[in-house]
C-alpha cells in the first residue's frame, strides 16, 4: 500500500467522523434492540406458550398454591381478565409486549406486591453488594496481576496465578457457607442476620444509620464476592501482561532507554487492562443474574434471590418482570460498553 493513498483515506475518515459515529451508534442500538426483543419472545414462549401448549391456564400459575386471601377460582378469573390471559396467544403477545414497554409488570401474588415495587426495593441492595466488590476485585486482580507479571515464571507468580484459577472454580455457595460459619458464627465478627443488622432495639434504622448498618452486614459478602470473582480478571490481566512484556513494542521501548517503571506502569498496564475492562463490563451487564448464590447463602434480599425465589415458586409475573429488567439492564450496559470501548482501545473504531 502506498502511503499517499492511506493518508487521503484517513483525511476522508476524519471529515466524516460524526456520521461514522452516528451510523455506528444506530447499528449497535438496532442490534441490541433486536436481541432484547428476542429475549422477550423467548420469555413469552417459556412462560406463556409452553404452559398453554400443555393446557395449563397461565393464570393458575399466577396464584401461588400457598396464597391465602380471596377464593382461588375468583382470583384466577380476575387475573385472566386483567392480563388478558384467556385471549388467543397471538393477541396475548401484544398485551405482553405492551405491558413490558409501559412497565406495567403486574403483581406478584407470592409477595402480594407489585413487581415493580419489589424490583425497586431489591435493586439498591444488590447494587450495594455488587458494585463495591466489582471495584475491589478489579483492583485486586490488577494489583496481583502486576505482581505476577513482574515476577513472571517465578514461584510467586505461580502461586498467585494458581490461586486465581482455583478461586474461579470455587462453588460460591459452598465456600460462602464456610466463610459465613467461620466469620459470622465462630469468630462472630460480622452480623449474619439482615433483620438484626438493620434494626436497633427492635426499631428499623433510617437514613445514614440504615445504610451504614447495611454496609456492615454486606461487608462479608462483598469481600467474599471479591475473592471468588477476581480470578478471571487476574488471569486475563496477567496473561496479557506477560505476553506484552515479550512483545515488540516493549522491547523497542526498552531499547529506547525508557525506564522499566514507565514501561511497566504506563505501557504494559495500560494495554493489559483492555481485556480486563471488557470483562468487567460484561460482568457488570450480568451482575444481577450472577450473584444468585451469594445472596442465597448470605441471606441478602437482593434481585438475584428474588429471581430464584420467583423461579422456585413459579411466580410468573415476577419472573417475566425480573427477566425483562435484567435483560434491559444488560443491553443498556453492553451498549454503553460499545460506546466507551473505542476510548479504551484506540484500535477499535466507531465503524
Amino acid at each position, binding site marked *: *500500500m*502506498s*502511503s499517499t493513498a*492511506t*493518508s487521503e483515506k*484517513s483525511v476522508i475518515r476524519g471529515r466524516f467522523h460524526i456520521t461514522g459515529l452516528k451510523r455506528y451508534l444506530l447499528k449497535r442500538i438496532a442490534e441490541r434492540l433486536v436481541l432484547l426483543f428476542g429475549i422477550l419472545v423467548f420469555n413469552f414462549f417459556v412462560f406463556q406458550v409452553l404452559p398453554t401448549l400443555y393446557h395449563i391456564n397461565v393464570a393458575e400459575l399466577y396464584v401461588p398454591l400457598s396464597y391465602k386471601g380471596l377464593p382461588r377460582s375468583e382470583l384466577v378469573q380476575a387475573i385472566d381478565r386483567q392480563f388478558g390471559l384467556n385471549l388467543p396467544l397471538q393477541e396475548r403477545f401484544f398485551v405482553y409486549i405492551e405491558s413490558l414497554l409501559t412497565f406495567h409488570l403486574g403483581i406478584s401474588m407470592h409477595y402480594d406486591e407489585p413487581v415493580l415495587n419489589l424490583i425497586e426495593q431489591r435493586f439498591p441492595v444488590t447494587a450495594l453488594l455488587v458494585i463495591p466488590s466489582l471495584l475491589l476485585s478489579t483492583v485486586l486482580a490488577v494489583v496481583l496481576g502486576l505482581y505476577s507479571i513482574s515476577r513472571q*515464571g517465578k514461584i510467586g507468580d505461580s502461586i498467585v496465578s494458581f490461586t486465581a484459577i482455583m478461586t474461579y472454580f470455587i462453588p460460591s455457595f459452598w465456600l460462602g457457607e464456610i466463610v459465613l460459619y467461620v466469620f459470622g458464627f465462630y469468630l462472630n465478627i460480622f452480623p449474619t442476620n439482615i433483620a438484626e443488622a438493620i434494626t436497633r432495639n427492635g426499631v428499623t434504622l433510617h437514613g445514614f444509620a440504615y445504610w451504614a448498618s447495611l454496609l456492615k452486614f454486606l461487608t462479608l459478602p462483598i469481600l467474599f464476592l471479591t475473592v471468588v470473582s477476581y480470578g478471571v480478571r487476574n488471569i486475563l490481566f496477567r496473561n496479557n501482561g506477560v505476553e506484552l512484556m*515479550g*512483545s*515488540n*513494542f516493549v*522491547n*523497542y*521501548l*526498552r*531499547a*529506547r*532507554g*525508557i*525506564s522499566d517503571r*514507565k514501561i511497566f506502569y*504506563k*505501557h504494559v498496564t*495500560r*494495554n493489559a487492562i*483492555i481485556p480486563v475492562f471488557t470483562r468487567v463490563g460484561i460482568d457488570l451487564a450480568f451482575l444481577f443474574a450472577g450473584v444468585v448464590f451469594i445472596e442465597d447463602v448470605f441471606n441478602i434480599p437482593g434481585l438475584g434471590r428474588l429471581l430464584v425465589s420467583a423461579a422456585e415458586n413459579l411466580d410468573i409475573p415476577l419472573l417475566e418482570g425480573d427477566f425483562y429488567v435484567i435483560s434491559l439492564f444488560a443491553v443498556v450496559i453492553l451498549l454503553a460498553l460499545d460506546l466507551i470501548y473505542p476510548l479504551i*482501545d*484506540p*484500535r477499535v473504531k466507531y465503524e
Partner: protein
Amino acid sequence: MIFEESTDVILKVDSLRTYYKTKRGSVKAVDDVSLFVDRAKVLGVAGESGCGKSTLVSTIFRVLPRNAQVVSGEVKFKGQDILSMDLKTFRKTIVWKDIAYIPQASMDVLDPVYKVKDQMMETIMEHEDVSKAEAMERIYKALESVGVPPEKADMFPHELSGGQRQRVVIAMALLLNPSMVVSDEATTALDVITQAKILKMMKDLQESRKFSMMFVTHDLALLANISDSVLIMYAGKVVEFGDVEKIFRNPLHPYTRALIDAIPDLRLRKKKKLVSVPGYPPDLENPPKGCRFAPRCPIAMPICREKEPELTKVEGFHYVACHAVSRK
C-alpha cells in the same frame, strides 16, 4: 586481529558470547563474535534468520530476554565498556542520545494505545530536559526529514501504513541526533518499491548527518549499495568480514558465495539459476564439531568436521573463517 583495520572506531565488539539458557542446555546464539564500526561508516551484517544477528543487536542495547546471558566478551562504544556499565546510566546517557535503534516496524512495534507524537515525546523527555514545545518542534522536524506529513503525529500506530510506520521508527531514532544507528531488518516486511525508497532515504540521511550505522539484514543484496564493510554471520559465528568491495567481488567463504549466488541479478541479464543454500542451519544447542557450516558445505574437508576454523586475514581488510581458504 580485525581491529587493526579500524581507522576511527566508534563501536567495537570483542569476542562476544551470548547464550540462551533453556531446559536442556544453552543455545549459543552469539559465539565469539568480534566486529567494529568506524565513525560515519556503515557496517552491513548479513545472515540467515536464527544466525544470531538479532541477539547481537539486543546485546548491544542490553535488552536481552531474561533467559539470555552474556557469557564473555565486551562491547565498547566510544571507548566505554557498555556491558559492564550501570544499566540506568547506560539508558539515560548513552542509549538514543548516542546510539539509536531502528527495528523492523511490524504491526506492534509501537504501543498501540498512544499517539505517535506522544511516544516520540516520551522518548525525548526520558533523555533530555527540554520544554514540550521544543520537543514538539523536534518531532515535526524528524518526521519531515523522513518524509512523513506532520499530521501523522496525531495518529495512532495502527492508522499508519507499513511504510509510514517504518519512517516513523526511523524518525524516532533520529530524534536525539545520535552518532550511531543500528538498524535491525528495518526494511524487511516492506514491498520492494517502498523498501528501495526507504533504503535510499536512510543512506541519504546517513551521509548528510554523518552518523555511523550498523545495518543488519538477512538480505545480502541490500548491503552492496549501502555499506562500507560487510560481516557475514552463520550459526552464531562470523564467517567472513571485510570491505564491501572485497566481499562482493571476491567472496571466499562457501556460505558467502552461496548467499551471493542466491541474489538474482537482473541487470546482468545473465541466465542465472536461482540458487538456494541446501540444508538447514544447525541446532545451536548442539552445534556440530568443527566448522558449523561443514554439514552444508559443498567443499567440506575432513578437517572441517574436526577443527573450528579461525577468522584469518586474507589480504587487506578481508577476513574469513574457512579451512579451505587458509590452506590455499
